[in-house]
C-alpha cells in the first residue's frame, strides 16, 4: 500500500517479510505505540500530584463505585442514599448511569482474579485513560471503514493526543464521559459497518454498543437522534437500501429494548420528546419498504404514483395525529430544558438559571476551539472536502456527525468532547489523503525518472496524473515542501497537545497549585483539609449546607449529609439554599433551622486569590433563589448593574449571609504587602464591610489558606 514510507520499507526488507506482512507489522506496531501513548499522556496528574479523583462529579462516581464493590450489584441497584439531598434523599440506583461504575468494578474484579492487589481507587483513576486507549483502536477501525487504513492510523494518532478529548479523560477524571466517548465511537463505527455490510450481526453489535452508551452517559440522546437523521438523509438522497433497512431496524428495536433496561432511562425511551425522531424514522422505514414492495408488485407507474401520494399523505397525517395526541394527553413528555438549550443557546439563560450557571454549559469561545483542536480546526474543512469528493454511505455519516457535533460544540463547552472524534476522523482523512497524494506524486516521478518509458506499470490514474504533471516544473520540490509543511504542522500539533495536557487539563482542581513569589510551586490542599475536619470533628448525623458544587465532595470525603449536591434534580431545594445564602442572617437562620442544618460551608478565595469561590458564584445563587422565591431580587445586590464587594457595594450585598460568612474576621487580616487590611486578592478590592458580626452562627473551622470556611449553627438562645 502506498501509505507506507519508503525508507521504512527498505528497513523491513531485511527481515525478509512479504510486503503485505511488512505493512501489517508496521500498522500493528504503530497502533501499539498509539495505544500506549494515549495512556501515558494522560498520566501527568498522577505524576504531579498523586493518584486521586479529580473535580466534583467524579467524587460521586467514586463513592458509588466504592458502594458497588462493597455491597454488590443488587444493593447498588436499590441504593437509597439518605446522606445527600437531606431530607429528601436520593434513589441513587435509579438516578444514575451505572455503566461507568460497573465497568470499573468489572476491571477491578478481573485484576483481583488475576491476583493483582489493586485498590478500587487506582482502577477508578485509570479507567478513563484505559478507555481513551481503546478509543484510539476504535478510531483506527472507523477510519479504515470510512476511508482507508492510512486514514485510520492517522485518526488513531490524532485522537490519542487531542486536547478536546484529554480534557475529560486524564487519569483521575473518573467521569461518565471517559467511557462514554469510547461507547459513542464504537456504536457509530459498528453501525456504519452494519450499513456498509447489511449484516445483522454488526447491527446487533451496534445495538449492544448503544446499550453500553445508554448505561454510561446521558449523551446517548445524541446517538438516538443522529442515527435517525442520518437514515433520513440517506432516504432523501435516494440511497435507501436493504442494508440500511436491516441495520437501522435491528439497531433501533434491540437498542431500544436494551436501553429501557437502564432504570434512569426506562420508559423515557418511548415516551419523551427527545426519542421521538428515532421512532418516526423507524415507521418511515416501514412505509418505504412497503412502497418498495408495492412498486415491485405494481407494473403500472401511474397507478403507483397515485398510490404513493395517498400512502405518504396518510402516513404523515397518522404520524402527526399520533404525536399531537401523545403530546396533549401527556403520554409523550415534552423536550427537557437541556435539550431546548442545545437547540436555542439563549433558552437556558432566560428560563433555567441552574443550567446556565454551570461553566461547562456556557457557549464556547473561539479560543477554546483553537485550544482544543489546534490544527484540526483547519484540517476539518479540508477533510469535509475529501469526504464530499468521495461520497459514500460511510462518508455521509461522518460528515453528518462532524457537522452536527460541531454545532453542539459551539453551543456548550462540554460538547467539544463529542465533536472531538468526528473532527479527528475527518481531519485524519484530510491528512491521509493529502500525504498520500503527495507521496504518490513523489514516487511516480521517481519512477518516471528511473524507468523512463514504463508508463503502464503504475496505477492508471496516478501515472496519467504524473504524465499531466510532468509539464509543471519544481513539482517534486513542491511536493517535498508540502510534505515537510504537513509534518511540521503535525509535530506542532503534538507539541501543543502535550503542552495543553500538562498545563491545563491535568490539575485535579481539588488540590490547587500556584506559583509562589520565587517561582516555586505552592500547593493549596484546603479542600481535603476541610472535608477531613468535617469527617473527624462533627457528629455522625450532622448536616452540612453549602452551595451545590461541593455536595458530592462533602458526602464522598467528609462523609456527612448535605442539603444539595451536584445532581441538581430538585431546583426548589437548591433555590432554598440560594435564598438562605442571599438573605440577612436572621432570615437565613429560619431556613437553616427548618432544614436541620448543623454546619454551613463556604469557599472563599480572598486570601489566596482563588477566583472560583462562592462570592464569584454568588450572583447565580441569587438568580436561582430568586427564580423560585421572588423576595430575592438580583438588583438588590448590584449597584448600577455592577457587582462589587467594596465600600460601594449594595447594602443588601454587604449584609447577606454569604458575604458575612466569607468575610467574617477578614477585615482585620493583612493579605498583601502595601495593601490595607481586608484586601480581597481574588477581586482586587478592599472589602466594604470589615466589621462582620455573626449572631446565629459561629466559626467552627477555617482552613490554613482560608479557602474553605465552616460555621456551626448555634442552638436557639437558651433564655429567649
Amino acid at each position, binding site marked *: 500500500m502506498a501509505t507506507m514510507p519508503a525508507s521504512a520499507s527498505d528497513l523491513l526488507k531485511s527481515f525478509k517479510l512479504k510486503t503485505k506482512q511488512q505493512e501489517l507489522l508496521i500498522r500493528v506496531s504503530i497502533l501499539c505505540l498509539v495505544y500506549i501513548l494515549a495512556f501515558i499522556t494522560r498520566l501527568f496528574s498522577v505524576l504531579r500530584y498523586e493518584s486521586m479523583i479529580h473535580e466534583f462529579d467524579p467524587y460521586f462516581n467514586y463513592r458509588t463505585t466504592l458502594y458497588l464493590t462493597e455491597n454488590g450489584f*443488587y444493593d447498588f*441497584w*436499590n441504593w*437509597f442514599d*439518605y446522606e445527600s439531598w*437531606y*431530607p*429528601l*434523599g436520593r*434513589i441513587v440506583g435509579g438516578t444514575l448511569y451505572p455503566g461507568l461504575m460497573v465497568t470499573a468494578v468489572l476491571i477491578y474484579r478481573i485484576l483481583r482474579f488475576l491476583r493483582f492487589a489493586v485498590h478500587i481507587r487506582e482502577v477508578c483513576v485509570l479507567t478513563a485513560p484505559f478507555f481513551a486507549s481503546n478509543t484510539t483502536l476504535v478510531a483506527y477501525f472507523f477510519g479504515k471503514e470510512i476511508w482507508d487504513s492510512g486514514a485510520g492510523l492517522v485518526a488513531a494518532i490524532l485522537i490519542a493526543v487531542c486536547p478536546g478529548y484529554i480534557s475529560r479523560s486524564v487519569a483521575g477524571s473518573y467521569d461518565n464521559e471517559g467511557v462514554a466517548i469510547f461507547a459513542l465511537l464504537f456504536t457509530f463505527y459498528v453501525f456504519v459497518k452494519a450499513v456498509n455490510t447489511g449484516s445483522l450481526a454488526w447491527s446487533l453489535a451496534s445495538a449492544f454498543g448503544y446499550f453500553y452508551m445508554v448505561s454510561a452517559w446521558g449523551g446517548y440522546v445524541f446517538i438516538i437522534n443522529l442515527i435517525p437523521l442520518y437514515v433520513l438523509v440517506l432516504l432523501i438522497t435516494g440511497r435507501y437500501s436493504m442494508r440500511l433497512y436491516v441495520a437501522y431496524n435491528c439497531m433501533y428495536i434491540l437498542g431500544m429494548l436494551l436501553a429501557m433496561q437502564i432504570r434512569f432511562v426506562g420508559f423515557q425511551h418511548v415516551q419523551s420528546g427527545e426519542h421521538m425522531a428515532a421512532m418516526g424514522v423507524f415507521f418511515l422505514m416501514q412505509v418505504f419498504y412497503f412502497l418498495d414492495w408495492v412498486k415491485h408488485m405494481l407494473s403500472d407507474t401511474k397507478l403507483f404514483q397515485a398510490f404513493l401520494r395517498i400512502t405518504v399523505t396518510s402516513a404523515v397525517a397518522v404520524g402527526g395525529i399520533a404525536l399531537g395526541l401523545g403530546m396533549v394527553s401527556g403520554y409523550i413528555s415534552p423536550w427537557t430544558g437541556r435539550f431546548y438549550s442545545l437547540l436555542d443557546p439563549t433558552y437556558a439563560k432566560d428560563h433555567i438559571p441552574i443550567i446556565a450557571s454551570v461553566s461547562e454549559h456556557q457557549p464556547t469561545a473561539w479560543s477554546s476551539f483553537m485550544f482544543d483542536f489546534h490544527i484540526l480546526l483547519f484540517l476539518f474543512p479540508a477533510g469535509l472536502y475529501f469526504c464530499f469528493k468521495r461520497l459514500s454511505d460511510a462518508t455521509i455519516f461522518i460528515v453528518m456527525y462532524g457537522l452536527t457535533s460541531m454545532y453542539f460544540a459551539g453551543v456548550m463547552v462540554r460538547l467539544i468532547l463529542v465533536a472531538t472524534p468526528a473532527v479527528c476522523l475527518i481531519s485524519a482523512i484530510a491528512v491521509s489523503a493529502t500525504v498520500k497524494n503527495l507521496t504518490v506524486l513523489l514516487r511516480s516521478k521517481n519512477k518516471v525518472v528511473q524507468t523512463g518509458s514504463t508508463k503502464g506499470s503504475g496505477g492508471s490514474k496516478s501515472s496519467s496524473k504524473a504524465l499531466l504533471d510532468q509539464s509543471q516544473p519544481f513539482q517534486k520540490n513542491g511536493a517535498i515542501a508540502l510534505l515537510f509543511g504537513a509534518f511540521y504542522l503535525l509535530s506542532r500539533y503534538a507539541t501543543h497537545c502535550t503542552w495543553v495536557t500538562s498545563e491545563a487539563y491535568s490539575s485535579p482542581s481539588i488540590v490547587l497549585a500556584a506559583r509562589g513569589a520565587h517561582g516555586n510551586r505552592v500547593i493549596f490542599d484546603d479542600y481535603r483539609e476541610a472535608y477531613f475536619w468535617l469527617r473527624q470533628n462533627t457528629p455522625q*448525623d450532622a448536616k452540612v449546607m453549602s452551595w451545590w458544587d461541593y455536595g458530592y465532595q462533602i458526602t464522598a470525603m467528609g462523609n456527612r*449529609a448535605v442539603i444539595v449536591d451536584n445532581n441538581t434534580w430538585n431546583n426548589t431545594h437548591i433555590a432554598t439554599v440560594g435564598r438562605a445564602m442571599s438573605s440577612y442572617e436572621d432570615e437565613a437562620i429560619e431556613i437553616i433551622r*427548618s*432544614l436541620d442544618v448543623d454546619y454551613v460551608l463556604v469557599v472563599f478565595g480572598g486570601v489566596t486569590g482563588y477566583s472560583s469561590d462562592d462570592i464569584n458564584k454568588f450572583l447565580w445563587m441569587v438568580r436561582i433563589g430568586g427564580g423560585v422565591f421572588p423576595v430575592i431580587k438580583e438588583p438588590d445586590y448590584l449597584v448600577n448593574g455592577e457587582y462589587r464587594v467594596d465600600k460601594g457595594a449594595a447594602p443588601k450585598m454587604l449584609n447577606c449571609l454569604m458575604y458575612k460568612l466569607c468575610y467574617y474576621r477578614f477585615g482585620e487580616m493583612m493579605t498583601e504587602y502595601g495593601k490595607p487590611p481586608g484586601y480581597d486578592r481574588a477581586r482586587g478590592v478592599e472589602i466594604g464591610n470589615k466589621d462582620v458580626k455573626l449572631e446565629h452562627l459561629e466559626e467552627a473551622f477555617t482552613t490554613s489558606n482560608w479557602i474553605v470556611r465552616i460555621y456551626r449553627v448555634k*442552638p*436557639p*438562645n*437558651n*433564655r*429567649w
Partner: protein
Amino acid sequence: MGKLWLICIASISILLPFLCNAFSPETPTDRRVLVLLDDFAIMSSHSLYFNALKSRGFDLEFKLADDPKIALQRYGQYLYDALILFCPSVERFGGSIDVAAIVNFVDSGHDLIVAADVNASDLIREVGTECGVDFDEDPSAMVIDHIGYAVSGTEGDHTLIASDDFIKSDVILGGKKIEAPILFRGIGHAVSPANSLVLKVLSASPSAYSANPKSKLSTPPPLTGSAISLVSIVQARNNARLLITGSLSMFSNRFFRSGVQKAGSQTKHEKSGNEQFLTEISKWIFHERGHLKAVNVKHHRVGETDEPALYRINDELEYAVEIYEWSGTSWEPYVANDVQLQFYMMSPYVLKTLSSDKKGLYSTSFKVPDVYGVFQFKVEHQKLGYTSLSLSKQIPVRPYRHNEYERFIPAAYPYYGAAFSMMAGFFIFSFAHLYSK
C-alpha cells in the same frame, strides 16, 4: 498512718453517694443552694421561707453577696445546683461572680431565684433583663394599687398590694387552691415581648400602676394595669427554671404570718397566701414538680421487635416511649392524653396522639407514608409548667427494592399474552416460510 487512710477511704465511700447526689438527670431535684444576701439579718427575718426549704432537704449555704470568697464553680464544676439572690441592693458581687457567670450558671441547667426590691441595683436589673423581664426604670417606683390594696391598720399609700391574679396551672402552683391573696410590696416589672419563655405567675390588677408613691405623677406611668408582673417565671430551653420578683419582703416572715384583707372585700384571711404560694412555686423552681423524662424510645415494624436502620414506604410500624414525672422523690408515670407523635420530614406527614396505658408507656402504630426521605420521629410535648419534652430520632424511609413490587398483576396478563403469542406466531411463520415449498 494506715489507719488514717482507711478512715479516709471509708468516709469517702460512705459520703460518695451523698456527694454525688447532686442535680442529675436521674434525680432532677436540686440539692445544694447558694443564697446570696445583702446582710445576714435576712436569714432571720426570712427564716420561715428558708426553713421550709431546709425541711425539704435542701442544703442552703448563706453568703453575703459581696463576700470576696464566693464562687459558683471550681475547676469547671458547679458547686451549687441553684442560686437564690436575696440581695437587691448589691452593686457588685464578690468573688468571681458577675452577670455573665450567673447567666452561664443558668445556661448550664441550674435554677435561679431573684428577688429585687425598691431601689434595686443596676446589677440586679441587669440579671432581670438577661432573664427577659424589665424592671421599672424609675429606681424609687413601686407598684401602687388604689383599689386592690391590702387593708391595713393605717391608711397608707396603697403600696402593699393584695393580689390574687395567679397563673392557672396546677403544676406550677400545686394542686391546692391558694385561697388568700398574696401580699406584695415592691417594684413592678414587665415581661419582655421578645421573650417567648417568660410567664407571669402573679400579675397586678388592672387598676395598678408603677410610680414613685412619694411624688406626684407628672407623666403617665410607664407600667400600668395587668401588664405589670409581680412574680414571673422562666423555663429556659435547657429546662433551667428561674423566678423573678420585685419584692424581697414577700418572702419575709412578717408577710408570711400577717393576715390579709383585700380592699373592697369582706373576707379577712387569717394568713396571707404568701407562704403557700412561694413554697409551692419553689417546689416547681427546684424541680420537685413538673419534670418529665422520656426513656425507652422504641420503634419497630409490626410483628418484629428489633429496631430497623431504615423503613420502607408503606411499612406498618409501632412506636413506644415511656414518660415519667419526677415527684420529688421518685419517678412516677406521667399521665396525659395529649402526647403527640409526628412523623416528620420538613412537615409532619403523620400526626398521632399516643395512647397511654396509665403506667407511663405511650404507644401508637401507623403506616409509613408513601413518600421516601429522611424522616424523624418527633415528640414535642410542651405543656405549661412541665419541662419541655423534645425527642427526635432520625430514620430514613426508602422506596421499594426492585423485587418488592407486586408481580403477576392481572392488568399485565394481556401483555404477557401478547408477548408469548408473538413468539409463537414468529416461530410458526418462520417454520412455514422456510419449509412451505
